[in-house]
């Protein structure tokens, strides 16, 4: 098999592969920068929690108008936002910290979602949506994912400065500006938005993978923030494309293949990364003069 057969032909021959490729690129562009900030803000598990939290919204959307893209997206976005804002409010105004209040809210949301799904019988269509269908992205879904990626990138550029300040030194930001609260809300909305975009392709549960794994890998590769974000995007794209190809050639389920590639890259970065990689760190080298 030539390199062309392996790398290019699947996309050249099949429209569904090209669509999957475009969708994956958009997901990587939108999600990876958000993932980097989730990681740096010690909220890596927040994405996972939010992925569960959008379940009842998507389920209600499905029940109300069937397999409608708009209804499920809106439902999921709304449910995620309620959980994120509710948890944030409780964390900022009471003794509970963000992790605890988020756990409480997302567990309630998850239980509600499972209840709604169960009461209405297990439904193959619904399950397919919950676990993604990256090889069957239609035009509206592609447009939605692309729109979400565009919105997410633009919004991240706008809130970049206050978001960095709120992550490094929240007390300082509080003393010079009231932007801290709103910026956190906008950021959480972006997390939810990217997850909602991701669940159409990868499913609610795996949508977090393309967000967090490349971000965590990039941490081992550089000490600078902007390069870290670019590297995370690059790794996410690489994982997506490699996952598509593996799925095409070996017949693996697509979304897990992408996340497994991202996971392999993470392990490689964790071991060999120039910034504190486990093996790099332990290579015996003479210490410096100063």
């Amino acid at each position, binding site marked *: 098999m030539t390199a062309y057969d392996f790398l290019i032909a699947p996309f050249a021959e099949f429209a569904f592969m090209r669509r999957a490729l475009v969708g994956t690129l958009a997901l990587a562009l939108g999600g990876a920068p958000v993932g980097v900030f989730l990681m740096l803000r010690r909220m890596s598990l927040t994405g996972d929690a939010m992925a569960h939290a959008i379940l009842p919204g998507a389920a209600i959307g499905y029940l109300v108008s069937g397999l409608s893209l708009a209804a499920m997206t809106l439902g999921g976005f709304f449910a995620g936002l309620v959980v994120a804002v509710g948890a944030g409010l409780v964390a900022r105004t009471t003794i509970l910290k963000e992790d605890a209040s988020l756990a409480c809210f997302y567990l309630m949301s998850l239980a509600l979602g499972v209840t709604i799904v169960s009461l209405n019988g297990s439904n193959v269509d619904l399950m397919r949506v919950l676990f993604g269908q990256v090889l069957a992205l239609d035009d509206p879904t592609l447009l939605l994912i692309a729109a979400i990626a565009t919105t997410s990138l633009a919004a991240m550029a706008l809130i970049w400065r206050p978001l*960095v*300040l709120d992550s*490094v*030194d929240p007390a300082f930001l509080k003393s010079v500006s009231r932007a801290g609260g709103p910026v956190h809300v906008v950021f959480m909305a972006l997390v939810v938005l990217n997850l909602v975009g991701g669940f159409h392709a990868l499913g609610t549960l795996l949508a977090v993978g393309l967000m967090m794994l490349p971000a965590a890998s990039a941490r081992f590769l550089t*000490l600078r923030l902007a390069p*870290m974000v670019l590297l995370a995007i690059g790794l996410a794209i690489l994982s997506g494309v490699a996952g598509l190809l593996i799925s095409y050639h070996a017949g693996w389920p697509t979304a897990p293949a992408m996340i497994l590639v991202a996971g392999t890259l993470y392990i490689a970065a964790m071991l060999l990364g120039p910034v504190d990689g486990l093996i790099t760190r332990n290579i015996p080298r003479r210490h410096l003069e100063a």
Partner: protein
Amino acid sequence: MHAPKPGGDVIRLHDLTLGYDRHPAVHHLDGAIQLGALMAVVGPNGAGKSTLLKGIVGLLKPLSGQIELGALTPRDIAYLPQIADIDRSFPITVAEFVAMGCWRRAGLFGGVAKADRERVGAAIATLGLTGFEGRPIGTLSGGQMQRVLFARLMLQDARVILLDEPFTAIDARTTADLLAIVRRWHGERRTVIAVLHDFELVRESFPEALLLARQPVAWGATDAVLTTPNLDAARRMIERFDDHADICHRHVA
């Protein structure tokens, strides 16, 4: 109880009580802080010193009484907390961190102009951090980080600067360098209020002092405040946080 010099008040405290969950940490404080004052706040642990700064900067709402800022807005006040809640592992360089001090000019979206970058460089040089601009803040020692925080304070260009134990766990040379910055601020007619524990340092460098033991013990010229009877009195006012404290009925004057 009033600070001595007349005229030019910037911050007035009226029967101010600050605290947590209705328990006062600063109890019935009256007085005024003058424009350009260089004032130390001293007292035992739990005396309410940090609480007072938090009240002035607006992080804590008074339980009763008032803080009048006059013509000042909260943006004119720069504040260095005692335990800075800074994520030292965040990938940000010294220069970027110091540049946060430009917030008042640049705000959320404004650009950081060439002049701002020059001021960042100048502040870094003044604090003796030249050569550290590109270093991540996670690689700095405690004293170097305190220099970085002072550089950011310089850039904030605030009229009132509140410092909560700025020299704790800082070596003598760094303390001297930072103290020089404080004197420079005083020379520029900025108002500096610092919580301190080193009485010798206060006597040497701070003309005015407030001795606090939840209630004000003495406030005025440092030599008149830091007397043995005053310090003994402050020590006797033990730290009490009585779960069953009665409601305070002290009359509002």
